[in-house]
């Protein structure tokens, strides 16, 4: 890859190992993994269950630390940040979308979306306004006052996406965002992610088990036995 391209990398993972210890058992999940993702890419990450897809996503999102190796995201080394700095970095630069939405059941959609903004210096009015915009982008303005249990799975996931984009992060990490949805709702979520990628230039990494979902991405990588490849290996 040329220098030019290297400088336009959103994600640079170099020689990353991830080892889990469960009692005396040592689980080697990722071994010397390298990965570069250019800005604005929509990457699908596939692979068998237990291959470490979520683990890799967590490392890139600064939710966990590698046992070995370096991670540079948006030009910043995150593997050596302190807990507090890492938290602040996550708040600013990463949007997370989960398979089971992970919304706060006692907060309305609007309040759920506002949550990440509590960590900013924005005024109350400004927070409200931005949450409203995010809800508008995902097409849920009319459900702002509803609680998660009053929303369908697809609507809850759209709320989840609104929460992920409300701070305007450059990187969106989605772990099986359609994994719990029917075809139609799943397609709507994928439409939304594609639009965010194309129209707003978000870099997206999406873990999925669904080939149809992966087909929406601009590139698909397969994780197997701790390594990435461009081909599925069964």
């Amino acid at each position, binding site marked *: 890859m040329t220098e030019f391209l290297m400088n336009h990398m959103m994600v640079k993972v170099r020689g990353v190992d991830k080892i889990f210890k469960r009692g005396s058992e040592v689980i080697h999940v990722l071994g010397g993994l390298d990965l570069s993702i250019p800005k604005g890419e929509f990457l699908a990450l596939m692979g068998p269950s237990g291959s470490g897809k*979520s*683990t890799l996503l*967590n490392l890139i*999102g600064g*939710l*966990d630390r590698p046992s070995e190796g370096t991670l540079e995201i948006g030009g910043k080394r995150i593997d050596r940040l302190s*807990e*507090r700095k890492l*938290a*602040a970095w*996550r*708040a*600013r630069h990463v949007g*997370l979308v*989960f398979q089971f939405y*992970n919304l*706060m*059941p*006692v*907060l309305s959609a609007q*309040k759920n979306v506002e*949550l*990440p903004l*509590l*960590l900013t210096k924005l005024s*109350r009015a400004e*927070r409200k306004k931005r949450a409203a915009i995010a809800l508008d982008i995902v097409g849920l303005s009319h459900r702002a006052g509803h609680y998660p249990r009053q929303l369908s799975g697809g609507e809850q996931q759209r709320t989840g996406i609104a*929460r992920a984009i409300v701070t305007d992060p450059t990187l969106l990490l989605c772990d099986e965002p359609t994994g719990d949805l029917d075809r139609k709702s799943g397609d709507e979520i994928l439409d939304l992610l594609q639009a965010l990628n194309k129209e707003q230039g978000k870099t997206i990494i999406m873990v999925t088990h669904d080939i149809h979902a992966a087909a929406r991405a601009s590139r698909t990588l397969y994780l197997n036995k701790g390594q990435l490849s461009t081909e599925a290996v069964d």
Partner: protein
Amino acid sequence: MKYLYLIFSGLKRKKLRTGLTILSIMVAFILFGYLTAIRQAFDAGVEVAGADRLIVRHKVSLIQLLPQNYETKIERIDGVDNATHSTWFGGIYQEPRNFFAQMAIVPEELFDMFPEYVVSDEHKAAWLETRSGVLVGRGLVERFGWKLGDRIPINATIWGKKDGGRTWEFDLVAIYEGIEKGTDTSQFFFRYDFFDETRAGGTGQVGWYSVRVSDPDKATEVAAAIDAEFANSAQETKSEAEGAFVQGFANQIGNIGFIIMSIMSAVFFTILLVAGNTMAYTVRERTNELAVLKAIGFTDRGVLGLILSESMALTFVGGAMGLGLAWLLVSMGDPTGGSFPVFYLPTRQLFVGFVLIVAMAFVAGIIPALQAKKLQIADALRR
């Protein structure tokens, strides 16, 4: 402030559990406030006791009498400023449950010895003119709805009259106020001269002496000197500081302070378990939510603070309601219907209550908060 809804949303999750916990905390603080007022009532005498006053009584027991002529002998002792005597009457007004103290004393000496009883000059003069007159504290007057000029019959249990009767009639001619809130205004003082000439027996005998020393620092020495003066006489004495005397008197009923502290400790310990349990559950049930908060950028410390704040909100709501209700209950009057010399919840104790609230919030919340703090995001999200 912007986190406030987040704090309360945590508590709103399980409304019934939160409600019951708040109720338990409230009950604990009602008890705290009410029992504190009761203890205060028992301690009041000790706290307001004159540091410069001794009580001299019969060595064997308080109910044994001393000769009236000890007064001049005591006053001759070095370091004694002044002495006066009191005699317990122990009569009954209408029925035994209307208990209050009645004492035969010498008016002029009383005013001199006890400046905490404030009496107007007219009332003083009226009392000095009326041999059967009585000086009554404001609290007692209000308790029975008496007014000046009332004739108050007291049935004697100890002191029969020369004429064979047992009902003594006193004229309410003077009322005293307390110099401060803690002053006992439940007393009933009548004149010793009237008492001595009317009683059937015991003439010239008095209950105990109150003695003012000129230097409070030498009180112990003066007490020893008084007891030495009467050693080996027919009526030996025991002298002690007024505070110690009042304490001993209260202890006849039992160590009230200790009993109350024991009850409160048990209650608070139980409530602490209840609150701690509630906090432990909210953290355990919300592992996932707390991990999400961290994932979107809340720091470990932020989450710790959130859980401690929830604990604070929980105990504060319950505790403040409890203290408020206790205050209300106490201001509605004492549980004996007026037998306590004083009954109120001092501001200082309210303050102690609020310190207890904060302490309880901390102790109940700190372990769950630390657990929330050390929660690993990736781990917690897998659960």
